[in-house]
C-alpha cells in the first residue's frame, strides 16, 4: 500500500471517483444483460462496460500511473483505443449472426418485416461483396 499513500488528496479523489464510476457502470450493464428479455435488447447492455465502464477505469489507471511514475504515461490509452475499435465490430457481427440464425429458423422474435429472406438480387450482391 506504500505507493498509494504518496498520492496527493486532490488527485486521489478523482481517481477514486473514476474507478468507482467505471465499476458501477459495468455492474449496471451486467445486470441489464441478465434482465433484458430479448437477444437484440441484450446486445446493448455490454456497451456500458465497453464505453464508460472501461473509460473510467482506464482514465483512473492513467492518472495513478502518471503520478506514481512521475512522468506522463499514456499506454493505458492503447487498451481504451483497442476496445473502442473492436467492441462495435464484435457486436455488429454477433447481431448479424443472430439475425441470420433467427431468419433461417423463422423465429417469432423478429418483426414480420425482417422475417423474410432478402430477395435474390440483393443476396447475390452481398455475396459478391464478401
Amino acid at each position, binding site marked *: 500500500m506504500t505507493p498509494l499513500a504518496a498520492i496527493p488528496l486532490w488527485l486521489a479523489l478523482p481517481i477514486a471517483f473514476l*474507478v468507482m464510476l467505471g*465499476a458501477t457502470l459495468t455492474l449496471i450493464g451486467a445486470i441489464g444483460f441478465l434482465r433484458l428479455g430479448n437477444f437484440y435488447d441484450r446486445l446493448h447492455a455490454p456497451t456500458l*462496460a465497453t464505453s464508460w465502464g472501461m473509460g473510467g*477505469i482506464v482514465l483512473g489507471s492513467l492518472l495513478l500511473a502518471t503520478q506514481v511514475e512521475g512522468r506522463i504515461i499514456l499506454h*493505458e490509452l492503447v487498451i481504451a483505443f*483497442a476496445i473502442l475499435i473492436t467492441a462495435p465490430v464484435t457486436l455488429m*457481427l454477433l447481431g448479424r449472426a443472430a439475425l441470420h440464425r433467427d431468419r433461417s429458423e423463422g423465429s417469432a422474435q423478429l418483426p414480420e418485416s425482417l422475417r423474410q429472406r432478402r430477395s435474390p438480387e440483393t443476396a447475390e450482391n452481398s455475396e459478391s461483396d464478401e
Partner: protein
Amino acid sequence: MSAAILTFALGYAQLVLSLAACVAGVRILRGPRAQDRVLALDALYIIVMLVFLVTGMQLGTMFFFEAAMIVAAMGFVSSIALAKFLFRGEVIE
C-alpha cells in the same frame, strides 16, 4: 487519507467487477441460445480485463497492464471467431 480513499475505491471496484463477472457467468449458464452465450463470454472478457487493470493499480505494478492488453486482444479474436462460427458453421472457409 488518500491511501484510505484509494484502498476503499479499488476494493469496491474489485468487488463490484467480480459481481458483474458472476452475473455474466449466470447468463453463460442460462443463455437460451448460443449467441447469448457468446455475447456473455465477450462481456466476461471485458470485465476480467477491467479486474486486471484495477488489480494492477492496487499492487502498483505494470505487469497487469500487459495481461489486460492480452486479455482484450484474445477476447476480440475469440468473439469474432465464435460469431463467424454462428454465421456459417465454420470459422475458416
